[in-house]
């Protein structure tokens, strides 16, 4: 039964042979939004997507505890059966108000939000146009949808326009899917241009703001707000497991009939709903995201500091300053050694190898949090600098520039 995974297993064994298994890290204890212990040693967490640092926010924790006491540990049912509580509906209203949308639907994970939204919106006879660097949940949602799927070149509005033109004679709705911030390199979509193409073609537009909610835009609504094109975005998808520090996902829209997805979208209907604790902490998280713009400012400042520190140390970086900072590695072996040595220095990052990365090139991926202090960032920059120097892998600037040019 599992024989087909032989090559995958050998691949994984090779990745783990150089030290620790990068995909099997289990922290002993998590001390805060920025620190954990691993094998009894303190490590700085520099790859958590915990953008606003809300995982230990006192109000969020207190709300989760109170909700558990009052409503129990789980709902034991789906949203269309016994799993919808007042809290779920209140959270949807709160989220819609924050996003300035007519309605919002909550899913049990961010992954399911993409699955449920894409499968609910697009069916046989429709067309999905996905950015080539889309997250796995978008690709999987597209498969579940049964629509005809077309990939367009990453962040390339002209390629999207050409594809919509070729498809213009075919019937069916066309839904363009992009992400606010792409998780691997941290680059953003050229949303104004994409919105213009979408409008010309009479297509629909979905933006996954998983990494940009609470991060971009003056009020934290994401890239569409920052670019001033929210009116062109028909569907906003996002997650509670990054800036909001919990788990779950959502889709929001202004379409009046949007609610029909509640009885049409299988990933919404056939899974248990979020537990009361999560619903409560996410609602408080939205309050914090709304009331404390300084968290967003700190996050941006920390992103700039890490980017500037690494650039000054001579590293070639994947994208401009932002919450995600990725180092392109010359090859997989170097990437694995870099990741292990950095962990030995006390800094946890994400190792990205294989097809999840743009062009299949290995990356050392980091994400910052508003909760990181200047001292912690300086510690990280120094450690990364030492490892980079030891491995002679500060990113060959010419190679990296060529890779960026090739990707564009």
């Amino acid at each position, binding site marked *: 039964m599992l024989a087909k995974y032989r090559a995958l297993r050998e691949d994984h064994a090779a990745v783990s042979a150089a030290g620790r298994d990068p995909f099997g890290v289990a922290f002993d204890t998590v001390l805060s939004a920025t620190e954990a212990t691993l094998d009894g040693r303190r490590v700085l967490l520099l790859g958590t997507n915990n953008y606003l640092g809300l995982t230990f926010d006192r109000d969020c924790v207190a709300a989760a505890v109170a909700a558990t006491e009052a409503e129990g540990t789980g709902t034991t049912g789906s949203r269309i059966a016994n799993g919808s509580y007042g809290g779920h509906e209140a959270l949807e209203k709160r989220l819609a108000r924050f996003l300035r949308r007519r309605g919002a639907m909550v899913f049990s994970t961010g992954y399911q939000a993409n699955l449920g939204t894409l499968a609910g919106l697009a069916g046989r006879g429709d067309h999905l146009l996905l950015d*080539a660097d889309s997250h796995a949940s978008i690709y999987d949602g597209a498969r579940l949808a049964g629509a*005809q*799927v*077309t990939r367009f070149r990453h962040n390339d509005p002209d390629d999207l326009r050409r594809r919509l033109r*070729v498809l213009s*004679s075919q019937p069916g709705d066309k839904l363009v899917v992009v992400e606010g911030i792409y998780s691997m390199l941290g680059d953003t979509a050229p949303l104004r241009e994409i919105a213009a193409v979408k409008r010309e073609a009479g297509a629909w537009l979905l933006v996954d703001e998983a990494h940009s909610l609470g991060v971009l835009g003056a009020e934290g609504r994401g890239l569409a707000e920052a670019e001033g094109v929210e009116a062109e975005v028909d569907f906003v998808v996002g997650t509670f497991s990054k800036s909001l520090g919990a788990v779950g996902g959502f889709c929001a829209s202004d379409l009046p009939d949007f609610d029909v997805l509640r009885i049409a979208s299988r990933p919404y209907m056939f899974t248990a709903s979020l537990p009361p604790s999560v619903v409560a902490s996410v609602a408080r998280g939205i309050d914090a995201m709304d009331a404390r713009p300084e968290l967003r400012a700190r996050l941006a400042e920390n992103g700039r500091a890490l980017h500037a520190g690494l650039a000054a140390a001579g590293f070639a970086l994947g994208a401009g300053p932002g919450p995600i900072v990725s180092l392109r590695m010359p090859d997989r072996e170097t990437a694995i050694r870099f990741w292990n040595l950095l962990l030995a220095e006390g800094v946890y990052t994400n190792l990205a190898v294989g*097809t999840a990365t743009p*062009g*299949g090139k290995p990356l050392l991926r980091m994400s910052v949090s508003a909760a990181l202090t200047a001292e912690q960032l300086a510690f990280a920059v120094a450690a990364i600098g030492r490892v980079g120097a030891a491995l002679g892998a500060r990113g060959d600037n010419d190679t990296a520039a060529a890779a960026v040019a090739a990707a564009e």
Partner: protein
Amino acid sequence: MADEQKTLRQVVEALGSVAKVPGPVTMGTHILHDLNLDSVAVMDLVMLLEERFDTVIPMDRLAEIETVGDLVRLLSRAGSGAAGG
């Protein structure tokens, strides 16, 4: 047939620009096994061909493509327009 030969030449040319091709390429060449392309390189190749042929190859059609010949026949059928229908 003449069209297929012309398309084959264009595919071989595109192949050369996305990867180092180890030997002569024929209609029977298996894309993954014989050419040593990984899935990322295959997607790059497909995107380049879609552009050059001004067509769109939907992702579900890619599963049926194993040999260079499969790709050539799909592109020849497509001409200019969507290869999906």
